[in-house]
């Protein structure tokens, strides 16, 4: 299918989310749409799927102008969408999910499962999308669930597939497999619109790259363009993709975990015998696919979740099962995974959020009365030092962009005198510029001889920051490796496969 978007413009009040966007996707082409969060990618897809009506511009399919007024229309015209968050029924089988809403029937309106299964097997052979049609979806790994989504789109005779940030939840191996699938789909004549903000993937798979920034197409690039060229087009200025790290010269152990067992809400051991240690001047990166116990581990360290057995020590002091207040006072800095839930009070000002966990510390309060002048001055200083983009310290933190909200947390934690920093998914959902910034702050912290534990499910981040990399799988550490280790090996560890070369 040849899809052409001509001069699409969509405004929300004074904000122009899409400004004269023109893109052409040729048949059999993998066309990559590269842009930061908030650049207008989602708006464009919603226009394409009829969920939003454009103010200007037109959509042409195979040269014919078309009106798409709802998603059913889009599907009938051969557009298929694979959402970032899968739209599958977890307790149904693959077959049931694929035919849902379009069930083939036999007499008496009974669903013809045999025919449905055959259709799926035929499709999966045709496009190398191997998956067991009778498997229950919730038991499948994320990568296979995504295949089901793709199969579902193909079963509706989609000629153009839109993949919206498809790799966010995948392991490196699953990403490679997805790339293969994309290539074979393109070879079979399907067009693919691949939406992402990850440069490596774009370079690996795209035929053409269109970069959008602040609602506008700022240019197109060949996959041969370098990552830093792509990044600077995306951000609008030069970006340093690799953070400069001083040579690694670790000191003594600062932080130590021994045989830690922590249970989750269901009472199951989410952390099951984890031992780790972090030295001064070292960043230990904890890699792993989301949901393997990292969240519970960090909560236990921060005093927010009871420890069943084992110990946590900071500078030789036992902080196991201490309250969050005691842990904070012991010098632990915590950048929480869910910044809006645990890190910020959205209805309060930037200044108040910058003293959220030190409101009683001098000079912010004296004998129970807050010194708002000192709080204000502190905020003004940090806004300057950490380059937080805000109108004033009094502005509500909810009106800041995601990147600046995270800067508020980073500034608050790093400005306290810390003994140890735990950062959980510190750049999730942030744009390239903010990622660069947060990374530099953490590396500076480490260069100054401090210790940090960085938990991340982004392999790039783990490799960029870690002096050593521990991989967590199913509540256990499946290996601790050097950052020079290949992505494949780390990927294998993320799936729980023990690897020979892992060392402590």
């Amino acid at each position, binding site marked *: 299918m040849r899809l052409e978007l001509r001069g699409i413009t969509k405004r929300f009040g004074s904000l122009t989310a899409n400004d004269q966007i023109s893109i052409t996707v040729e048949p059999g082409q993998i066309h990559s749409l590269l842009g930061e969060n908030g650049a207008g990618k989602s708006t464009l897809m919603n226009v394409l799927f009829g969920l939003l009506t454009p103010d200007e511009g037109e959509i042409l399919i195979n040269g014919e102008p078309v009106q798409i007024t709802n998603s059913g229309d889009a599907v009938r015209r051969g557009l298929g969408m694979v959402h970032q968050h899968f739209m599958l029924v977890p307790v149904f089988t693959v077959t049931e999910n694929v035919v849902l809403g379009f069930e083939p029937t036999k007499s008496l309106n009974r669903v013809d499962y045999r025919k449905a299964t055959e259709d799926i097997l035929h499709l999966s052979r045709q496009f190398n999308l191997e998956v067991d049609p009778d498997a229950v979806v919730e038991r499948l790994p994320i990568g296979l669930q995504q295949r089901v989504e793709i199969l579902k789109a193909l079963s509706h005779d989609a000629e153009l597939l839109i993949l919206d940030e498809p790799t966010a939840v995948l392991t490196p191996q699953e990403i490679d497999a997805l790339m293969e699938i994309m290539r074979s789909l393109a070879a079979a004549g399907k067009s693919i619109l691949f939406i992402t903000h990850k440069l490596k993937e774009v370079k690996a798979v795209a035929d053409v790259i269109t970069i959008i920034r602040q609602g506008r197409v700022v240019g197109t690039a060949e996959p041969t363009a370098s990552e830093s060229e792509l990044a600077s087009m995306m951000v609008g200025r030069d970006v340093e993709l690799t953070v400069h790290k001083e040579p690694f010269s670790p000191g003594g152990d600062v932080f130590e975990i021994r045989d830690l067992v922590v249970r989750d809400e269901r009472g199951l051991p989410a952390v099951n015998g984890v031992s780790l240690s972090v030295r001064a001047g070292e960043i230990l990166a904890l890699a792993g696919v989301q949901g393997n116990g990292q969240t519970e581990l960090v909560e236990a360290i921060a005093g927010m979740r009871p420890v069943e057995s084992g110990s946590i020590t900071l500078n030789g002091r036992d902080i196991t099962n201490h309250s969050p207040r005691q842990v904070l006072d012991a010098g632990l800095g915590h950048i929480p995974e869910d910044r809006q839930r645990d890190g910020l009070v959205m209805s309060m000002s930037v200044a108040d959020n910058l003293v959220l966990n030190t409101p009683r510390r001098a000079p912010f309060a004296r004998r129970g009365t807050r010194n708002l002048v000192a709080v204000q001055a502190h905020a003004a200083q940090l806004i300057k030092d950490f380059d937080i983009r805000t109108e004033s310290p009094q502005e509500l933190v909810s009106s800041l962009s995601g*990147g600046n909200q995270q800067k508020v947390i980073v500034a608050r934690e790093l400005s306290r005198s810390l003994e140890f920093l735990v950062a959980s998914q510190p750049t999730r959902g942030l744009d390239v510029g903010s990622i660069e910034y947060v990374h530099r702050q953490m590396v500076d912290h480490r260069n100054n001889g401090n210790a940090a534990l960085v938990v991340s499910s982004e392999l790039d981040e783990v490799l960029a920051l870690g002096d050593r990399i521990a991989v967590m799988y199913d509540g256990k550490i499946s290996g601790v490796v050097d950052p020079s280790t290949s992505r494949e090996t780390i990927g294998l560890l993320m799936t729980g496969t023990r690897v020979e070369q892992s060392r402590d």
Partner: protein
Amino acid sequence: MTEATPVRLHRRVWAQLTSQHPIVVTIFALILGFLVGAIIIMTTTASVLDAWRGIFHNWGAPGHAIKLTFDNVGAAYRTMFTGSVVDPNSLWHSLTTGKNWPVTLTPISETLTYATPLVIVSIGVGIAFQTGIFNIGANGQAVLGGIAGGVVATMVHLPMVIHLPLALLAGVAGGMVAGSVPGILKAFTGAHEVIVTIMLNYVVYAFLLFAVLSTPFQQPGQQNDISRTFDGSAQFPPLFGTASGLRVSYGVLVAAMVVVFAWWFLDRSSLGFDFRVTGANPSAARASGISARSVVVLVFVISGGLAGLAGFVQAASTTHEIDGGFLIGNAGIGFTAITIALLGRNRPMGILWSSLLFAALGVGGRAMQSQTGIPLDLATVIQSVIVLFVATPVLVKEIFRLRAGPVATLKLATQGWGT
């Protein structure tokens, strides 16, 4: 200075008026409340209704019906105003002759008298709301405060400088005790505060009956459920002396101090900051090292203490004794406090104004009832409609076509600017 300036100013005023600012929404809610009240007066007054019917039967002119409507509604709201704030004629008379000041000031004195305990108890409820705690037990806490203060006021005999403060502290302590029960139960067992406080109200009411029927506290020589009279040294003296006949007492100063305390507590104290963080985002509060348990217990102690103070102020400035129906009839100030706190958006100044409004509607409603025959219930209807519209800003916004405020516009404009 070009011609454009006045236009722009006029535009800016209009923009403010049609924005969703809380105060604007509240003012429109007030207008709607009085409008609904007017419709009720119109449809329940026989003469007005007859005049309107006349239009359809060709024996009356619409002009007459409209005039009659305005006369009736006007009279009702006029008496409501003159009965609760001031009668302009009487004020003019006093200003020109210097006489009759007590008569002129009686309405506002009554309104302040009614508002005094309302301000105190509503601020207690508002502080709890800001912490995310729903204190439905303020009435029981006020009753227990009244009893505790009353016991000190009747059974201990001391000079006023010691006696009144002591009785007042006893009232606060009584409310704190009543408040700490649901606080501790919630903090340590997770019991839901709404259930516990509602049930505790009945426990306190039963205790009140027991107290006013028991020998040391009951009025000697009485079989009825009524307490001894407070010692003169434990009563709030009238602000303008007994001779003036004005009931407004030194209790209003206590209420004023509570407003100042609440402002300091919420805006300036470290504990108040913890409370607000907990109310706005309990998970972030926990992650920031705030102990949810101590906040829950403390907020109930403070909220209950203020309710207890309100109960004592009520008894020590008006009735000077406590009977078996103390604060229980007419829903009780502890329940009115919930709506007042809502109307005042849990802010001390907002609560002050809301309390004055509610007191004025009550006092003025009584004047309206005696002078125009329109039942007092109309005042209650107006109060309820106002709160209803304040609680549903979306509806008010739709009715008056208010635009999103400048803050919301700003937010949209700054989206997508990354770093």
